[in-house]
């Protein structure tokens, strides 16, 4: 599982790398775009994901102890928090749509000097948060499967490997967001 996560690090690493290059090339344009990110929603979503990581960690703990009821309970909670995150993300995407901040022919940026470069940032924003959201959706599917398996009493304190592996995956997706949040929402939003 860790080997898979290392490949995932490289996958997201490529996108972080392109973010870094463009940020270095057009610092003013990038700083002016992060003002249009919804920091409140972003911060709230960060908290939601951290909560879901806690419930996931507790789910793994319950499975170690062989507490089936608690395991299902924490998995359902994790899944719900994941759905809350995705719901808020959808609200944010809708906001971008209304503000014409989706790259393409309909793109409109308030500061016309930066129209071209701002599109690059919004493109990266959608690519990075979009890939992250896809990972969340996959995670939600895996959690559903875990709940189903736990419901059928497939795990015990001597065998709970799937819970632990999917737990690792879930925490990894949380870590990606931990980096995305300051880079996309916070940097330069006072300027």
């Amino acid at each position, binding site marked *: 599982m*860790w080997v898979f996560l*290392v490949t995932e690090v490289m996958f997201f690493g490529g996108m972080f790398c392109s973010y*870094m290059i463009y940020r*270095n090339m057009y610092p003013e344009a990038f700083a002016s775009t992060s003002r249009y990110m919804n920091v409140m929603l972003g911060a709230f979503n960060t908290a939601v994901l951290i909560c879901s*990581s806690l419930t996931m*960690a507790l789910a793994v703990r319950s499975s170690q102890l062989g507490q089936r009821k608690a395991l299902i309970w924490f998995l359902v909670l994790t899944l719900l928090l994941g759905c809350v995150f995705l719901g808020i993300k959808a609200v944010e995407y809708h906001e971008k749509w209304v503000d014409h901040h989706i790259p393409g022919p309909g793109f409109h940026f308030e500061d016309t000097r930066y129209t071209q470069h701002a599109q690059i940032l919004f493109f990266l924003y959608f690519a990075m948060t979009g890939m992250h959201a896809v990972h969340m959706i996959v995670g939600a599917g895996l959690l559903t499967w875990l709940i189903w398996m736990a419901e059928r009493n497939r795990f015990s304190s001597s065998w709970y490997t799937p819970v632990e592996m999917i737990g690792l995956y879930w925490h990894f997706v949380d*870590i990606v967001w931990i980096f995305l949040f*300051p*880079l996309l929402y916070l940097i330069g939003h006072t300027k």
Partner: protein
Amino acid sequence: MTHHVVPVRVYVSVFLALIVLTFTTVAVSELELGELNVVVAITIAVIKASLVVWFFMHLNQSTSMTKLFAGAGLFWIAILLTFVFSDYVSRGWVPRAVWWR
């Protein structure tokens, strides 16, 4: 899978630390610190990620092999970012050679 069971107290403390750090990073981003804003934001993100990896992902009680793989991931990403960035930053430092004229 021989991890021993960690008390709930540890998970909750890590969780609280993560929430406090999130508030801190948002609060600091409201201040005008120039370049320092980026440094603080990244530093807090690294601390948060380390907390998650170390406690939630149980790296603190993993085998050396697992630690090696986690370290390798960190190392490869460092290579990627450092080499690419050193290229982009250093462009234009040295005037282009004119030997072909």
